[in-house]
């Protein structure tokens, strides 16, 4: 029977093949080889990209359409296979030089997100006036019109009472259309309170690079040319960032480079590493100091970048002070000061006593790393830095790149390439007196106060302190919030000590959540608005770097929307602006109408046009050949939209040597930039830098505050009562904590080394299993000073004795039928954030994730 069917099909196929033979053979080459490369060199680059973009075999029923995955912040360019407006499957977009046609497990899960039955399909209104964890909101469906009218009325009331600062916008996952809602709308309404989620993510990671080389950003790593890769608390084969690119090349990279992974649990990257350094959590700075010490005493620093002793004799000898005059630096600043202040006594033996790693191993790693200079990457991830005293760990781990000359160098650590997107028109002309007055109030998150320097790009209060908003709300300090809108965030799940958020959100009289699922955050809101899914249903764009490039990858609506969804960052603000205009406040709508279609010059007349024009506007220089600057070139919008991604020019190596955006223009081992920032911050509060250090729980005093150095970890919990250190890590299936309602998440949970399918496991070393009488499969309770969770135990050799490693992502008590055990009531598994106290790396404003708390484990 099948044979007959196949035969019939073959006949049909042959028939059609004759008709479209030329097209078929052309396209088949591209798909069968899986890359556009096969198309030969003679073709126009854009034609090549278009061919790879359409990339559909002659017999395929659907089309591959470009998209962007935001399952983590790798932000990879992908393609979705669409049949009749329905998403079927996903693959990497071969046109990106950043994600190089690759993906990872995450994009596939997005299909189960977009078709999640528990997505909200309509705007919803809370009918239970009481708010709280135990109060069922009793949501009922309402129309968009109803919802928008209510929101507009609330905003107009704020304006009427001159308290527009009591409006707050909270941002979670965003695209670069964010400014429409996050910045412009907040400002034009008249509030300073646009609160991003950045500080619960990675700001401390950017601290080190900024105060050494003037780069407040993630880095990209030239792994293919590296000879040594030293990875600190990052897991590039599983999580953040450029998982796609690193997965693609890692098989080649490990041939060429030695890889050492510093992390208390065996990660996916650790599994394939040459050296696993299961450090005692929080002591990364000690290891980095010892590595720096060995590099200097063994004269392994990169002289082309760092310089040398004037007479060539190495005076970096254990315990010896060195005179600054004897050393002539090239592209760095303050090496000798750093040695004298921090490094001269930091031997591997000393570090061994802190890190619990063997001194021999530390020395060997240091020697191998130093000998690989300048192709020696020190890769700073969240592990060592998202800690109470993580800022200086961020500096000292990153400073190793300076010693070996890997900064901005081949086989080293790179900044993002330039891409030519453009900002939206400014809001100033549309801000009235109310708005200008409102915006002058202190921001709700208390940033910039003495104990919250949040030195984003060196500015006191320049960065957000996301998780502190809960406390600010609870204390009405600086004031109360009356109207809040939040989108694609879930602070009542994703922030440490989320219980504070539950109480804080219950206090806000009117709050709106734009979300795909009724999440923990939604539980406390008055109106829920059904959001589009980024990968399939909205306009947007992102920028992301890797492989020596930066790409701009766009999102477009490519499938049929099943529900009455509207896009958070474009459709919603437009529709709200219309409602506000109806109420006599048309500034916002007038502002949005300035986002004209670059092709036709027409101003938008509805939310759909607005979304499209905004995207075209922001990416104008990328696709308009008349405005071409560098990188990929397109013939126009249509071609760009079809390809879906634009690549920057290749990386200009060593262009920043001597021209870094630090105070000295050099790579600062003694950070004049940080000194200035701290002194400015202190001066603002009539305080000293030492008082700032004290208020921020740092040990550094005097000059130590300006050099990268080791600080002992600051961890909650009495070791007697809480014998184990808690190690949080990320899952390669986590779509930022949003995949817990996908059936596949559970079927494949064991893709995280040590984890178990269908379970949420706390991993402990078998030695601790014996010590605490716990076996694999036991139900256990983990308790920290701030909370308790229940999950399953797993004894695993890949965990440092004395620690509990647990993957973040489960423990939802809302979000959906699979995510929770009983929706609205009982969590499935445990949320790590319940254990982690709401403490901060205050210099950057970051939320603490690592070495933050001790826990005890009990069998239930």
């Amino acid at each position, binding site marked *: *029977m*099948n044979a007959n069917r*196949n035969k019939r*099909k073959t006949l049909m196929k042959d028939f059609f093949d004759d008709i479209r033979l030329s097209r078929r053979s052309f396209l088949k080459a591209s798909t069968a080889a*899986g890359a556009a490369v096969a198309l030969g060199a003679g073709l126009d680059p854009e034609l090549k990209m278009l061919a790879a973009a359409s990339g559909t*075999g*002659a*017999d*395929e*029923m659907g089309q591959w359409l470009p998209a962007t995955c935001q399952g983590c912040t790798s932000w990879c360019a992908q393609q979705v296979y669409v049949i009749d407006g*329905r998403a*079927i*499957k996903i*693959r990497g977009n071969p046109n990106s030089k950043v994600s190089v046609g690759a*993906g*990872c*497990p995450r994009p*596939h*899960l997005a299909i*189960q997100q977009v*078709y999640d*039955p*528990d997505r*909200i*399909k*309509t705007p*919803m209104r809370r009918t239970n006036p009481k708010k709280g964890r135990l109060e069922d909101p009793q949501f*009922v*469906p309402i129309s968009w019109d109803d919802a928008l009218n209510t929101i507009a009325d609330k905003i107009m009331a704020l304006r009427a009472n001159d308290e527009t600062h009591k409006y707050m916008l909270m941002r979670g996952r965003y695209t670069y259309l964010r400014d429409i809602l996050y910045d412009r709308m907040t400002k034009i309404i008249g509030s300073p309170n646009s609160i991003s989620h950045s500080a619960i993510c990675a700001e401390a990671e950017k601290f080190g690079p900024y105060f050494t080389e003037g780069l407040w950003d993630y880095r990209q790593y030239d792994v293919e040319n590296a000879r040594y890769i030293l990875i600190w608390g990052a897991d590039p*084969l599983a999580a953040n960032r450029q*998982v*796609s690119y690193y*997965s*693609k090349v*890692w*098989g080649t990279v*490990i*041939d060429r480079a*030695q890889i050492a992974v510093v992390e208390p649990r065996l990660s996916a990257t*650790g*599994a*394939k*590493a*040459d050296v*696993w350094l*299961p450090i005692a959590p929080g002591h990364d700075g000690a290891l980095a100091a010892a590595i720096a010490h060995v590099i200097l005493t063994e004269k392994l620093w990169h002289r082309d970048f760092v310089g040398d002793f004037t007479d060539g004799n190495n005076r970096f000898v254990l315990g010896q002070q060195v005179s600054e005059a004897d050393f002539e630096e090239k592209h760095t600043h303050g090496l000798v000061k750093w040695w004298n202040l921090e490094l001269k006594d930091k031997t591997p033996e000393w570090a061994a006593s802190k890190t619990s790693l063997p001194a021999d191993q530390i020395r*060997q790693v240091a020697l191998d790393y130093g000998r690989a200079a300048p192709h020696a990457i020190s890769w700073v991830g969240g592990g060592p830095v998202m800690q109470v005293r993580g800022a200086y760990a961020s500096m000292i781990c990153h400073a190793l790149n300076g010693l070996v000359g890997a900064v901005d160098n081949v086989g080293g650590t790179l900044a993002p390439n330039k891409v030519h997107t453009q900002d939206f028109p400014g809001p100033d002309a549309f801000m009235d007196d109310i708005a200008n007055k409102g915006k002058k109030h202190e921001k709700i998150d208390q940033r910039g106060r003495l104990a919250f320097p949040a030195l984003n790009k060196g500015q006191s209060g320049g960065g957000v302190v996301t998780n502190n908003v809960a406390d600010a709300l609870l204390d009405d300090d600086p004031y109360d919030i009356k109207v809040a809108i939040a989108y694609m965030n879930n602070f009542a799940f994703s922030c440490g000590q989320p219980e504070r958020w539950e109480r804080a959100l219950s206090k806000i009289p009117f709050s709106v959540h734009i979300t795909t699922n009724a999440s923990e955050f939604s539980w406390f809101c008055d109106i829920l608005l059904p959001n589009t899914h980024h990968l399939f249903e909205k306009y947007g764009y992102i920028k992301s770097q890797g492989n020596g490039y930066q790409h701009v990858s766009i999102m477009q609506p490519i499938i049929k929307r099943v*529900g009455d969804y509207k896009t958070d960052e474009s459709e919603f603000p437009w529709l709200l602006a219309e409602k506000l205009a109806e109420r006599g406040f048309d500034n916002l709508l007038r502002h949005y109408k300035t986002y004209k279609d670059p092709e036709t010059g027409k101003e938008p007349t509805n939310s759909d046009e607005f979304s499209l024009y905004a995207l075209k506007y922001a990416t104008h220089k990328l696709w308009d050949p008349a405005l071409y600057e560098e990188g990929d070139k397109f013939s126009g919008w249509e071609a760009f939209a079809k390809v879906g991604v634009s690549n920057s020019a290749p990386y200009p190596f060593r262009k920043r040597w001597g021209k870094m955006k630090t105070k000295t223009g050099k790579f600062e081992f003694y950070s004049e930039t940080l000194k200035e920032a701290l002194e400015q911050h202190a001066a603002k509060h009539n305080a000293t830098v030492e008082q700032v250090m004290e208020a921020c729980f740092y040990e550094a005093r005097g000059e130590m505050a300006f050099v990268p150095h080791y600080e002992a970890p600051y961890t909650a919990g009495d070791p007697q009562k809480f014998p184990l250190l808690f190690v949080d890590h990320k899952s*390669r299936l986590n779509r930022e904590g949003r995949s817990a309602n996908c059936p596949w998440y559970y*079927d494949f949970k*064991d*893709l995280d*080394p*040590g984890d178990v399918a269908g379970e949420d496991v706390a991993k402990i*070393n078998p*030695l601790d299993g014996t010590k605490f009488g716990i076996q694999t499969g036991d139900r256990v309770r983990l308790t920290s000073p701030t909370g308790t969770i229940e999950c399953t135990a797993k004894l695993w*050799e*890949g965990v*440092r004795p004395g620690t509990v490693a647990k993957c973040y992502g489960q423990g939802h008590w809302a979000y959906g*039928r699979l995510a929770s055990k009983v929706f609205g009531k009982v969590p499935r598994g445990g949320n790590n954030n319940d254990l982690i106290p709401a403490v901060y790396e205050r210099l950057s404003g970051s939320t603490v994730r690592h070495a933050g708390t001790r826990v005890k484990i009990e069998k239930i």
Partner: protein
Amino acid sequence: MPRYAMVIDLQRCVGCGACSIACRSENNVPDGIYWSNKITETSGTFPNVRYHYIPTLCNHCDNAPCVRGCPTRAMHKLDNGITMHDPDKCIGCKYCEFNCPYGVIYFNWRNAHPYWRDETVLIEGCTYSPADMTRKAGGKILPNYNPERDETLAGIRPKGVVEKCTFCDHRIEKGLLPACVEACPADARIFGDISDPSSEVRILLGKFRPFRLREQLGTDPHVFYIRDFNPAHYQPTKGGV
């Protein structure tokens, strides 16, 4: 006639499992059933520990025990070497699954995708039931149902019969690579015609010493593994007494 085979380069493999999840979407595979799977192992004791990962799938053996034992020839070999199954002929005796040395065959104990057949709604009036979502999206049982799978095998296999990897025969027929190969971000899977001396698989098999799973059973599997998941460097040593 080509003879299809796969080479899996363990050094390139990063153990991410994208192959297995992509396989689920390509082949509408039910939860709990893994056409594409893995064998993992954590070896050593702390701190000298590593984790190893071997991707697995149907080996499309030349001497397939599943084919030999099947009473109705529902499990059969195609000319191109693919071990194929015809659910119409399957009596559900599960002998193929019993016989398979590689644990790659699964039985449909129930109507596939019970999750997506559910008609319950989480928040009345505000969210969907799974079945409703499928209807609204325009799918079939699954909202993301791939109709192309149905071209050579029941798109979703009925209860009472077995199912397993088919090397994506429906894609190969169109000159496309199997879904797991296309989805592999690390290019760890290399697919091709082993009867063609110039094929990539033959080139790699000539370059490395490949191994296959449970070769001693004489099944002649056509999934080959080369290199190591962790080819770590180490300091040369003679050990000591």
